[in-house]
């Protein structure tokens, strides 16, 4: 981190806590983090005008996400983490600083660079599940048969192969987010941006979707930036947890987590969770409360 602030980084070697309890321990630590930067965020600031005056959503953010990394951005509501995702996805433009994505060379297949999965289902209600998933491929002029095959592959991956002809309103909240995941994966994005994707779901659905996401991440080796305000979720999923605080949005701290997958709860992780929660009290944040 080329930092103005000194950020304490807790580096924990893999295998210290969890060794062979993994059934699909597909990645060694070195595979997991090849240390090739995928996304570089340099000195990014963003402010908005609102009724109450200028709001500094993000102040001088510096962050590097490595290829294949599962980076969790953790912070209370209204701390600018969604803004950061929108900036990365080119849905908004930063006031200062730059965001650089290192693409993995020329792409022969139609695809997208940065795809975002929103908190609420952003699936198109006028299309069926399958039509939603092929939407991006069709825009890129892919053939109907090929698109369908690809879509079916990813719909099977998210366990929705039997629901391809349903309309969106016929699905549960968890199923909608799985379709959204398939709709993004089918375009083979360089980086997957997830904006509190499970926040609107009940606890059990959230847990099981988290595990599925972890499994899919191991299989597809995607770089993921996952935004959440849920400490447990961040610690359970991320290779690294980047803790934000709000007003203005800044990075407070980073935690590197053990690499073994699937991640199981351990006293060590519980310790980190406690520590982060403590931190938030020290930051004087009202944890979990919207500040807007």
């Amino acid at each position, binding site marked *: 981190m080329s930092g103005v602030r000194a950020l304490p980084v807790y580096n924990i070697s893999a295998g210290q806590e969890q060794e062979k309890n993994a059934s699909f321990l597909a990645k060694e630590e070195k595979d997991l983090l090849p240390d090739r930067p995928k996304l570089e965020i340099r000195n990014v600031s963003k402010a908005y005008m609102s009724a109450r005056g200028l709001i500094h959503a993000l102040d001088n953010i510096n962050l590097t996400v490595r290829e294949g990394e599962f980076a969790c951005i953790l912070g209370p509501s209204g701390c600018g983490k969604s803004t950061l995702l929108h900036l990365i*996805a080119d849905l908004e433009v930063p006031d200062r600083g730059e965001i650089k994505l290192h693409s993995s060379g020329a792409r022969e297949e139609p695809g997208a660079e940065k795809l*975002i999965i929103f908190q609420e289902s952003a699936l198109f209600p006028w299309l069926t599940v399958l039509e939603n998933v092929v939407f*991006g491929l069709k*825009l890129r002029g892919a053939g109907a048969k090929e698109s369908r095959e690809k879509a079916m592959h990813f719909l099977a991956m998210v366990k929705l192969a039997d629901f391809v002809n349903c309309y969106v309103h016929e699905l549960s909240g968890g199923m909608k987010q799985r379709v959204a995941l398939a709709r993004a994966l089918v375009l083979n994005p360089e980086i997957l941006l997830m904006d509190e994707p499970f926040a609107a779901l009940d606890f059990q659905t959230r847990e099981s979707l988290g595990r599925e996401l972890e499994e899919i991440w191991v299989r597809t080796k995607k770089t993921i930036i996952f935004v959440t305000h849920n400490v447990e979720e961040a610690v359970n999923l991320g290779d690294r947890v980047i803790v934000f605080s709000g007003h203005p949005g800044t990075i407070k701290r980073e935690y590197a987590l053990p690499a073994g997958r699937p991640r199981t709860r351990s006293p060590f992780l519980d310790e980190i969770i406690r520590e982060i929660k403590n931190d938030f009290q020290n930051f004087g944040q009202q944890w979990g409360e919207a500040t807007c």
Partner: protein
Amino acid sequence: MVKNFWNKIGFYFFLVVIWYIVANSGRWPEYILPAPEEVLQNLAQGLRSGRYLLAMGISIRRLLLGYLLSLVIGIPLGMLTGKYYWLDETIGSLMLALQTLPSICWLPLSLLWFGLNERAILFVVVMGAVLSIALATNSGVKNVAPLYIRAGKNLGARGVVLFLYVILPAALPSIVMGLKQGWSFAWRSLMAGELLFINLGLGHLLMMGRELNDMAQVMAVMFVVVVIGLFFDRLVFSKMEKNVRRRWGFDQT
């Protein structure tokens, strides 16, 4: 379902029986209240001789032509005013103002502009339908959830593609409502126009009935007007609306 159907049949049968009794009581002359069988007879005769069919053909042709013109003008107008703020502020506000004007008020202007001909009638029909189509399209486009637009952009849709594949389908429920309303306004405007400015058509037959004191004809033609209105509403617009509602899941509770 079946029970509802028999309820309806029973109700209409009851109405006709009452009508029959009152009309045959001799209390009112035939030119005030003809009996149902006389209206039926008139209807059959008019249909058999081709008089009614001809008038129906002329009216429906005017309706379709006027409606088609309204679609061609109204949908792009609604899309443009929905998309560009400055157009909405100018043309949009004019559309809202003119919407309050009953379309038959355009007839004097239309007669002076176009003369006593087909184009004058078409103009009135278009003025009746085009504004509700344009305004519904406008509000549909303006009210598309920003989330769909963001998702569409993120998936790679920009400009015209975004408009055609995201904004327009997202606005469809509202547009369909406008199409339905526009149709019924077109039909009403046409009938009003044909009554005032006689030029064949069903409205013309209605006025002929009045002039000949032939109430059976008046009622028979009114019946035809209702049937045509129902026919298009049920077969085209309600189907379309139902289809959209089913897709979007609006009919769920």
